């Protein structure tokens, strides 16, 4: 049969998890990573990254709103998906998704953003007319007290929410790793390291994503990039990237040294079907190159313009590398037979429900949401006439 080498069990020839399932961990990873960057300022008092605090929160929310879409679209019966909430199966990792998602969306992200923006929302609800004014009035949820004491309470509650949010962000993405890591039938996935690798790669992608958005949006607004801020973000990106890379290498070395029954098959796959996406894109281009570039910025005193360019390139490469990692996990895990005797091929469709165009649309959709959110809740201190951002 076309696209099959060696022997596959006959039901394995078709791949059931497509590019949309690649997109799902990529998007949730961006959410978790962006939130953890925001928490640096809020909980760990890293003042340097403050200019990105609100942008990181809005980015996390934009991507979180889109996160379930690839999953739902992939289902054979999308309208049955609410059953996961109403009749969840307690032993299924996937069944917990709905709850983790709702908890993170409502109890953490929306609540924290609302608390942080409450003062501005109250001002805007009073000063804006028309439909937008009504939207702001609804967003106040009837809470218009912006006395010193009330704002102080907001601040304290917001801190607690962020504190709760950090393990929640870990849970959100760690659980995505667990979905794959707990499948004992698939040696490419089955690893207790999987959730940990997913969490750190999420942090890499989220931090890189927010850094790029901050630099890009600041440039679009013709404002000056706060170099102290991006230098700090790049430093965190570098260190977390090292941890992420070390964990992935630990997994790789362990597999090579242990060389269990699946090793020969997986090794062959990495050197053939996954060579380009794993060795070339993920490891060389998406990990080692940005790590070297970021390392340079840490040890060599480079001029501002050079640092900006390096950060932009490293950020883009890191995002490509993390996307390739998700691809290699999801698609790679279905390319080999569980008989370890053969390989199949993934042929991506173009215009189907799970095709390339849908994947591109779902990648761009969070950016559209972000644009709306930025218009509604400007994250920049100077754009709000009535209400300077907290701390200004």
């Amino acid at each position, binding site marked *: 049969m076309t696209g099959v080498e060696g*022997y*596959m*069990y*006959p*039901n*394995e*020839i*078709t791949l*059931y*998890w497509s590019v949309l399932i690649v997109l799902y961990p990529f998007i949730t990873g961006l959410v978790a990573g962006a939130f953890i960057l925001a928490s640096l300022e809020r909980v760990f008092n890293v003042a340097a990254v403050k200019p990105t605090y609100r942008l990181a929160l809005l980015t996390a929310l934009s991507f979180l709103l889109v996160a379930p879409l690839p*999953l739902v679209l*992939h*289902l*054979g*019966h999308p309208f*049955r*998906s609410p*059953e*996961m909430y109403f*009749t*969840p*199966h307690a*032993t*299924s*990792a*996937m*069944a917990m*998704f709905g709850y983790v998602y709702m908890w993170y969306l409502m109890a953490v992200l929306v609540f924290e953003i609302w608390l942080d923006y409450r003062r501005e929302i109250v001002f805007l609800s009073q000063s804006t007319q028309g439909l937008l004014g009504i939207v702001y009035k609804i967003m106040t949820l009837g809470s218009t007290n912006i006395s010193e004491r009330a704002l102080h309470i907001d601040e304290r509650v917001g801190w607690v929410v962020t504190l709760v949010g950090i393990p929640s962000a870990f849970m959100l993405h760690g659980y995505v790793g667990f*979905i794959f890591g*707990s*499948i*004992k*039938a*698939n040696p490419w996935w089955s690893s207790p390291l999987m959730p940990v690798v997913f969490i750190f790669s999420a942090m890499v992608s989220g931090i890189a994503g927010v850094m790029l958005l901050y630099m890009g949006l600041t440039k679009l607004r013709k404002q000056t990039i706060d170099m102290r801020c991006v230098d700090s973000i790049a430093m965190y990106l570098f260190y977390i990237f090292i941890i992420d890379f070390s964990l992935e290498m630990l997994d790789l070395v362990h597999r090579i040294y242990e060389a269990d029954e699946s090793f020969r098959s997986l090794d062959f796959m990495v050197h053939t079907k996954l060579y380009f996406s794993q060795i070339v894109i993920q490891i060389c281009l998406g990990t080692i190159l940005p790590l070297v570039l970021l390392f340079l910025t840490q040890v060599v005193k480079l001029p501002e313009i050079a640092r900006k360019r390096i950060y932009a390139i490293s950020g883009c490469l890191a995002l490509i590398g993390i996307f390739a990692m998700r691809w290699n996990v999801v698609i790679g*895990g*279905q390319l080999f*037979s*569980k*008989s*370890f*005797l053969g390989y199949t091929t993934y042929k991506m469709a173009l215009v189907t429900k799970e095709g390339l165009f849908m994947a591109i649309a779902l990648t761009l959709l969070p950016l559209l949401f972000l644009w709306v959110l930025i218009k509604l809740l400007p994250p920049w201190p100077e754009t709000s006439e009535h209400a300077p951002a907290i701390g200004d």
Partner: protein
Amino acid sequence: MNISRRQILILLPAAAVAWKSVLAGTPEASPNYKMTDHWWSMLIDIPKCIGCGNCVRACQTENDVPDGFFRTWVERYHVTDYHMENPEVISPDGGKEGFPVAVADEGKYFFVPKMCNHCTDSPCTQVCPVGATFTGPDGVVLIDPKYCLGCAYCVQACPYGCRYIHPEKKVADKCTLCYHRITKGLTTACCEACPTGARQLIDLKNPKDPIHEFLKTHDVQVLKPQMATGAKAFYNGLDGSVR
């Protein structure tokens, strides 16, 4: 009795639905079947399998299995002395139409029928997010097609490649051990069609089932025992090279 045009318009669609149901027939009831009295499984006697593909054809006909997908299939292994770990395996169209003539002189050839192992600790059941797949009190792993989301998590979790997503129904599908037959005292379609008795439906809770004697006197193994799934498809004469 006067029936108005309005009443006819209301009655006609209802009559059409009722007629369709009459034509479909009522599922045969099995009032005497008590699930807790059984613990179903399958014995596959490898030395007896001749690779004729009767079982695959019978299964596809009985269960309306879509082309290109299999509730059961037959593999032919070719194992040579120095390549025990890398056997040459083929299963053209699931072995439905039999196999080409073997040409190699060296090594050994044998056939291995495959199907859902109806595992006691089935990983597919464990991962289903809504519990649409479940193990019945009689040990048969089934899927509720009206409840399945079609997420394919169970397909990924099955170590034996026994599940697929039905291309038209968009739900997970696999061997039901011909549940509609065994609950009425019949055997499965594949067992019925096997000319050599290489497949035998067994009921471990039935003290009169000859399987008890067979298990005492033969070396019986399950596929991938390291997976600890509690597989219940028992293989007699299973070669170590079989995956």
